[in-house]
């Protein structure tokens, strides 16, 4: 009895200054995404996209453009659908049992989910780096060479060597591993493994790289190196990164998208999101009131 009474009292107290979270959530279920989700000349565009796991809807009507040679950061509380959304972009959701994606997703104007789109070719154009480093239990060389071999990118051995070296250099791993290219990739440290995974992803020269919390298993120094790397990669690639660290989002991205319970609440330039967020949920999240 007493606890309910105090809760009600507390709620009333808050509601004087601001609306309760449940009210806001009721609001976003009908509301549009605030900010500037759409843009001219987008690399990828997502329209009216829903994702279901069985009967449960995980993403609700998202519209979003991803700009060329830009880093877009996706933030939001745990379970809000960031990973789910990211996996839509290279059709990794196809491999999830019971997952259904609807809506219109395009890469350079061509529909990703059309029957004509070959998943293999798509994933050669849109690479992915996972949350936990997952190198193959093969040598460092074979890890990086896997994609080029798979897609037949190198006709000669020398060409393959070149691709491997270039990729490792761009992932700033070359100096550390150049003497042991043929030792197992799983023998590297966590941060090195993640950079190896990035090298593996860029070895096929994708146009877009998706990163799902790439630094969550890493220490600050390794994280800093990967952030530097992302900044360099931006010159040639389009990058979508999911992160739990607001500082990281602020450091590496040009645009930031805030997700909440499967809804895309706000998209704006990163600076704007972190200095003067338009939506009260965004503000609540970045100021640490929930998440």
């Amino acid at each position: 009895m007493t606890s309910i009474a105090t809760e009600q009292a507390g709620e009333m107290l808050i509601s004087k200054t601001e609306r309760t979270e449940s009210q806001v959530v009721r609001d976003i279920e009908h509301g549009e995404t605030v900010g500037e989700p759409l843009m001219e000349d987008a690399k990828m565009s997502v329209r009216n996209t829903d994702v279901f796991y069985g009967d449960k809807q995980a993403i609700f009507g998202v519209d979003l453009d991803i700009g060329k040679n830009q880093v877009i950061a996706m933030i939001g509380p745990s379970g809000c659908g960031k990973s789910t959304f990211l996996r839509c972009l290279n059709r990794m959701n196809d491999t999830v049992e019971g997952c259904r994606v609807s809506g219109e997703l395009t890469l350079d104007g061509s529909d990703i989910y059309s029957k004509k789109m070959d998943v293999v070719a798509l994933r050669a154009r849109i690479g992915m780096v996972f949350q936990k480093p997952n190198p193959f239990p093969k040598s460092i060389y074979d890890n990086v060479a896997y994609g080029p071999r798979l897609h037949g990118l190198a006709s000669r051995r020398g060409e393959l060597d070149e691709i491997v070296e270039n990729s490792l250099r761009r992932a700033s791993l070359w100096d550390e591993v150049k003497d042991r290219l043929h030792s197992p990739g799983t023998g590297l440290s966590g941060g090195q493994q993640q950079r190896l995974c990035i090298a593996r992803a860029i070895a096929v020269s994708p146009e877009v790289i998706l990163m799902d919390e790439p630094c969550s298993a890493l220490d600050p120094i390794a994280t800093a190196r990967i952030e530097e790397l992302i900044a360099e990669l931006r010159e040639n690639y389009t990058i979508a990164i999911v992160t739990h660290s607001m500082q990281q989002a602020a450091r590496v991205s040009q645009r930031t998208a805030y997700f909440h319970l499967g809804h895309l609440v706000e998209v704006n330039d990163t600076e704007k999101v972190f200095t003067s967020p338009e939506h009260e949920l965004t503000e609540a999240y970045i100021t640490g009131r929930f998440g």
Partner: protein
Amino acid sequence: MTDQAKAPVESTIDKVNKTLARRYRAEKRFRLYGMLSIGFGLLALVVLFTDIISKGKGAFLQSYIQLEVTYDSDVLGVYDVNDEDQMALANFEGVVKQALRNRFPEVSSRKDKKELYQLASLGAAFELRKQLTADPQLLGKTETLWLLADDDIDTYYKTIGGEEFIGATSDKQRAWTKSLVDADEIELKFNINFFTRGDSREPELAGIWGAAKGSFFTLLITLVLSFPIGVAAAIYLEEFAPKNKWTDLIEVNINNLAAVPSIIFGLLGLAVFINFFHTPRSTPIVAGLVLTLMTLPTIIISSRAAIKAVPPSIRQAAMGMGASPMQVVLHHVLPLAMPGMLTGSIIGMAQALGESAPLLMIGLVAFVVDVPGAINDPATVLPVQIYLWADSPERAFVEKTSAAIMVLLAFLIAMNTLAVFLRKRLERRW
């Protein structure tokens, strides 16, 4: 403050220390239990091995009698060794008998002579034929040769000095044997026949090679059929099949099949392969088919477990690179699951090697003298051979049975060692 200091407060670490002693005791006890059970297992193994080895080691040696043999043309009825008809009808037994008569000239009565002739095995005549065919110059010459003794003499000779086993030997035969012993004209030699011949009614001529080859052909067929089928089924079920109630049903049924008594597979094989498809009875091919049915569930279950153990992150990484489902399986899942699959398959093979019940149903129990040369020759297999010998009345088959068990165990140990070796060799960490 002072109040608290006076009160005998127990700090957390004191409490922990108290339970610690108990924990150590429990740990010690547990280790003891483990050591006891392992000790018990080892003891059982040692008892089994000593029993089998002490019983069976005699089978590796066989008694030979030294005799002066004359390749007498008149006795043999052979005047030209190159004449095949003459050789086919040649009376080598007569030569052996003559040699025995010459060695024991005092034997005169017809009945005694008959007993005397029983000292030598039929194998002695085979040996002489072989010698003469190899070297035609021997015709008419006299040679001192070691010839195979009969199994009763062999058994008796092996027990002289201990608790003598006389079996079917007569007083006179034992006296002759003793005189041979005194003259150093009877000796135990390595029993090459045991490793080179097929089954025989004569224990001194019975060998394990026929059954070993039969087992080899049978296992070859089982492996060639069940490994690819089992692995393919496991891959399909794990990687491609939709997860619905049909696949659940299949899973339940596979698990059930693994537990079905093996004799049922024999009945199935009899009904399907022999009565319906008319596969030749008593052959490695039909035995291999039946054992394939029997080992498939084991291989499928262990292969599925091996595939399940491949971390999903590897699959995701490969798919993220654009590998097709088939490429994910071929490049990553199979190599990583292979050690587990191989181990499971070899254990299944070892089971199949030791299986006899289903094979009795499909005629592998037939008495086969010839060593099989192909998968559709009549054959028997090691465990069935053991069963057949264990069932034979001759005393000399007792040691043969144990020796055959040793051979079977050697095969099993070799296969299991191979399994461990392959696993160690192929296993990769990730």
